[in-house]
């Protein structure tokens, strides 16, 4: 087990290095720069700015410097917000995105799993058709339509929840539901397929023959087996939640990391862009590793090499 984890970490290191290198060169080879804004800056000041951040040096020297500071886990100063470092921006923005993502995941599980179980039990019945159609409809409406729609109904018409901004628990509700809905859909489908499979297995018949109540049979015996693939779906889902939250943060004016990323990309803030991408890459690799380890605990049949 320890060996498996170490091996995975060792495999990830070159990938992280590769991402760092690729983003660095993509950004530098692209036309434009952080200080070439529409506001004309006198050439002397521009030269000074370039010199301050070492942008006047040859590319490979900049690259070397960048890698060396990465080893110290220092992502460098932000060009867009001169008095802040990228580390500070991440520390400030990420907890917000994380809270949003976690709440959305919770919403997805709370809707998705029960819906999938119901659909599987009533397989081919009316309820199955209904849930699966609702589920498909859920994927077919993009979150950036769902979000404004929710704001329109629940904030501007019914006054139930605040339409935007961040801080109070009520402000978490609408964004979390908006972000979570598409994933509840995937989870519902996955749960349904797996439940259908599990319900045909011998151990379910045995349990039923021994007189286990139908409710307990479904929600404990069967669901335990059916949830395994759902767990493995959670790894990639974290990736999607992270990217999805970019749009949600924009709609609900939430000061999360996703919004910083887009803003800094538009203003060619090299360090913030590279830092955020790298941070998310490490996060996602870690999330996938955690999910794989969790999987192993839940299903002792799986062997790791």
């Amino acid at each position, binding site marked *: 087990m320890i060996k498996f984890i170490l091996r995975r970490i060792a495999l990830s290191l070159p990938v992280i290095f590769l991402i760092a290198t690729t983003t660095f060169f993509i950004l530098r080879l692209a036309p434009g720069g952080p200080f070439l804004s529409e506001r004309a800056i006198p050439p002397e000041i521009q030269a000074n700015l370039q010199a301050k951040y070492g942008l006047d040096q040859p590319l490979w020297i900049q690259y070397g410097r960048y890698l060396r500071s990465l080893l110290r886990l220092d992502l460098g100063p932000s060009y867009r917000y001169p008095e802040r470092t990228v580390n500070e921006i991440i520390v400030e923005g990420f907890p917000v995105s994380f809270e949003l993502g976690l709440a959305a995941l919770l919403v997805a599980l709370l809707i998705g799993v029960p819906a999938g179980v119901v659909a599987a039990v009533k397989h081919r019945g009316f309820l199955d058709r209904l849930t699966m159609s609702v589920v498909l*409809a859920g994927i077919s409406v993009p979150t950036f339509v769902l979000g404004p729609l929710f704001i329109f109904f629940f904030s501007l018409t019914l006054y139930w929840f605040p339409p935007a901004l961040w801080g109070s628990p009520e402000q978490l509700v609408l964004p979390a539901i908006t972000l979570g809905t598409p994933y509840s859909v995937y989870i519902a489908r996955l749960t349904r397929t797996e439940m259908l499979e599990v319900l045909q297995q011998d151990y379910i018949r045995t349990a039923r023959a021994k007189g286990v109540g139908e409710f307990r049979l479904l929600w404990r015996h069967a669901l335990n087996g059916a949830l395994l693939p759902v767990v493995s779906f959670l790894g990639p889902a974290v*990736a999607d939640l992270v990217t999805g939250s970019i749009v949600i943060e924009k709609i609900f004016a939430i000061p999360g990391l996703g919004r910083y990323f887009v803003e800094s*990309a538009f203003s060619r803030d090299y360090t913030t862009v590279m830092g955020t991408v790298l941070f998310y890459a490490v996060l996602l690799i870690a999330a996938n590793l955690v999910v794989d380890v969790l999987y192993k605990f839940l299903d002792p049949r799986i062997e790791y090499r």
Partner: protein
Amino acid sequence: MASILQTPADVLPAALSLRGIVYRRMRRDPWMLLCATVLGIILLASLLAPWIAPYSYEQIDLKLGASPPNSAHWMGTDTLGRDLFSRTLYGGQISIAVGVVGTLVSLLIGVLYGSIAGYRGGHTDEVMMRFVDLLYSLPYLFLVIILLVFFSSSILMLFVALGLVQWLTMARIVRGQALSLKNAEFVQAARLSGTSGTGILFRHLLPNMLGPIVVYATLTVPAVILQEAFLSFLGLGVQPPRSSWGTLISDGAGVMSLFPWLVFFPAAILAAVLFSLNFLGDGLRDALDPRLRHD
């Protein structure tokens, strides 16, 4: 002679060719037929936009402004007085093109990669699939955003970038198929008779994997269309005055409480297309999945 040869085909149950499955499924499930019809109509209307659209997509009429649906503009007009129906039709061309080309790019990479990994097996397979596992855990859309922001966000770049995001799952599916097919007797026979690796791949493996590939491609198209819309919402998709369904929705969403029709029509069309594609893809996948076929 001919009649003798034809008899078995009539007596035996229909072979599970892709076309056969699609046909049977459609006949049994009227909902799938409905979805296919809706999809067909929207597709055709978009393709024929230059002949159907009553106005051009960039014809501005500031005096008109944003007007609700009426007899002259039956989807209404946007804030610049452009006809929404025409813009939705032309936008469909772009959205559909992005979906199809993105899927083709992902097909090209995914099928080649997956079939090589699966057919070679052993160490090659191990290394290639570990690589895919790792790529799975990358924040792809972030890289796409970088590509689009830092280089021009041209339609071509959009095609390539979105295709690059989508090939991983395709590679996994194809690899699984190749792995299970490579020891089949007909492949062994081909190998024994001296067919080269590429020959086996293209003549024997690929035709037999076509079912799952086509089904998964049906599910990839809506995913790519949705991603284009996602990028458009961030201002990275198609640039004005051209429009895609994504840019129309994103423009409309901003003024939703004032001019609700501007978001309603494009969103409804996009949802109908995504729903139909997903419904068809799901149905076909269930039909092809041997685990689900018997019930």
